[in-house]
């Protein structure tokens, strides 16, 4: 380590020697940074899962443009839209096809007493082009009344059921006093919105949700003609449809809008953002404390170095060296502990909490930055090291 740092800095690694000389302080500082990392990782993990489950439903549909009610908030938190706009949209240049999408929440209780709440997507089974290519081949199975495709990741659903379905054994269950038969699976995952998802035909949907009418789906999916950009068509649709009631968004824009709604307008998003902020603050304060105590404890030595002719860059170098050591040594255990906690969260909640490289790199860079800022503040104490006081 000494040798490595000496090569790296081209001088004695005083910052490192100083930090490692006081083992207790080093341990406290590293633990502090690791803890701050853990806080930030947990918040980001849950926030990531929140974002992931916000856009997850988009994976089961396949559309270029989505028409929705202006009253709605997100794909799954929507209001109804009049079906007449579907016909109007069909008349717009560049629109190749349109299809209604119904969404509802279906709570039911399994035989073993587990209560499950599923997001139900009702689609037109004669338009397989509007569901994801993975699901499209299964769509014909749904033409049979009261059949459904069940989410493999459904929370509370026994694995035997899912395994059975994959092997081709249908699974019948009661919901809303009617019998539904699962005839296949799709893979979306639960998340925050519901315990899982399921897909049915629009006919089955309307049968289960008696209050809903075919005249008012939740969204209208629009496929554009080959070679036309969805943005262009979306602009044309906006011109034609009443802006006060109909929201026209490309698929991408809709996902982005859902994400921003969930992270900025929902208390959960704000709370998690605040958690990240707290984690960073904790790290900053701990590192500042350690580094400034270190400076204060060594004022006479620093003053001696000043008398010997060492300039400000030398002292800044020492503090930043310490900051970098703390950042690296704190980040590694923080990352490992966070991955452990992520695995625990997945096992317990089934939320899609995963560590991706970009997040790890981001947090590491953030840690480096925070430690450096703390170090920069701590160096202000160096001004107190006056060599004239040494004699």
């Amino acid at each position, binding site marked *: 380590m000494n040798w490595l740092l*000496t090569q790296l800095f081209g*001088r*004695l690694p*005083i910052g490192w*020697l*100083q930090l*490692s*000389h*006081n083992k207790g302080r080093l341990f406290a500082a590293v633990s502090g940074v690791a803890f701050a990392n853990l806080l930030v990782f947990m918040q980001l993990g849950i926030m990531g899962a929140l974002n992931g489950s916000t856009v997850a439903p988009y994976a089961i549909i396949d559309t270029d443009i989505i028409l929705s009610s202006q009253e709605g908030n997100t794909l799954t938190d929507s209001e109804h839209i009049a079906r007449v706009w579907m016909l109007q949209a069909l008349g717009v240049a560049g629109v190749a096809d349109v299809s209604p999408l119904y969404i509802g929440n279906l709570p039911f209780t399994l035989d073993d007493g587990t209560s499950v709440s599923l997001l139900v997507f009702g689609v037109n089974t004669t338009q397989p082009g509007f569901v994801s290519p993975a699901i499209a081949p299964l769509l014909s199975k749904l033409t049979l009344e009261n059949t459904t495709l069940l989410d493999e990741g459904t929370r509370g659903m026994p694995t035997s059921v899912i395994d059975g379905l994959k092997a081709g054994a249908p699974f019948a269950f009661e919901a809303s006093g009617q019998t539904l038969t699962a005839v296949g699976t799709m893979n979306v995952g639960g998340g925050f919105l519901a315990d899982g998802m399921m897909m049915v035909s629009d006919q089955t949907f309307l049968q289960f949700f008696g209050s809903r009418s075919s005249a008012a789906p939740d969204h209208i999916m629009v496929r554009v003609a080959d070679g036309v950009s969805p943005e262009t068509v979306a602009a044309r649709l906006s011109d034609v449809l009443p802006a006060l009631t109909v929201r026209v968004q490309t698929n991408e824009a809709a996902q982005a809008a859902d994400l921003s709604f969930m992270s900025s307008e929902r208390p959960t998003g704000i709370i998690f953002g605040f958690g990240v902020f707290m984690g960073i603050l904790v790290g900053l304060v701990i590192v500042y404390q350690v580094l400034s105590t270190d400076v204060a404890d*060594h004022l*006479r*030595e620093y*003053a*001696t*170095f000043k*008398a*010997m*002719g*060492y*300039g400000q860059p*030398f002292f800044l170098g020492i503090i930043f060296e310490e900051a970098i050591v703390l950042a690296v040594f704190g980040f590694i255990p923080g990352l490992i502990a966070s991955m452990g906690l992520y695995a625990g969260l997945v096992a317990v909640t089934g939320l899609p909490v995963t560590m991706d490289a970009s997040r790890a790199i981001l947090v590491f860079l953030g840690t480096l930055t925070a430690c450096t800022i703390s170090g920069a503040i701590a160096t202000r104490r160096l001004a107190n090291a006056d*060599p*004239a006081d*040494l*004699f």
Partner: protein
Amino acid sequence: MSGAPIVVSGLNHFFGTGEARKQAIFDINVTVKRGSLTILMGPSGSGKTTLLTLIGALRDIQDGSVYLLDRELNGATEGELVALRRRLGFIFQAHNLHESLTATQNVRMGLEVHGKGNASLQRAASHHMLDLLGLADRRDYLPGNLSGGQKQRVAVARALVANPQIVLADEPTAALDKESGHTVVEMLKTLGQVRGTTTVMVTHDPRILELADRIIKLEDGSVVSDESN
């Protein structure tokens, strides 16, 4: 080098402001010859340390002038002062060693400031200096494991390792036993003769007075006697 390494003229120094303003140094004029060993004496509070810090570019000159190695300190920039200090060797009363650095590493700090020589050359030079001061078997000790006198000798080694042109010392022998105190002063004396190192030292130690080329006595911030041997 044209002139003397230290030329002090019309030097006054004040501490405090307003009502509390107090003059510590009164119109001092001293020229120190190259390679000489000069001793500053005087009662406590007579201004010895203040004069030493002014000469050592550790304190801003308020009034008068100090030429150090042909550079005027009065009005010099911080950068110029830092560069000048690298050519000096300071020996403080307290050792001020870095607790996390070994004896050798502490001494090396006196070389690294110049940025010259690679690590192994610096280490060899540091070892040599420690050996001269009788610390050959303590090279890799941390200060915490050294006696007070040994620490002070490490500090001396650190001050001398880079071959300074001027050595400024404030009661350096206070923490040393008789023998090593004598060794250190002998060493400074020899350096003066061999390399032309100029030493200004504050001390009350009568045994050292015999070795001095010149003894300056201060009282209440003024020179009251100035004798050359």
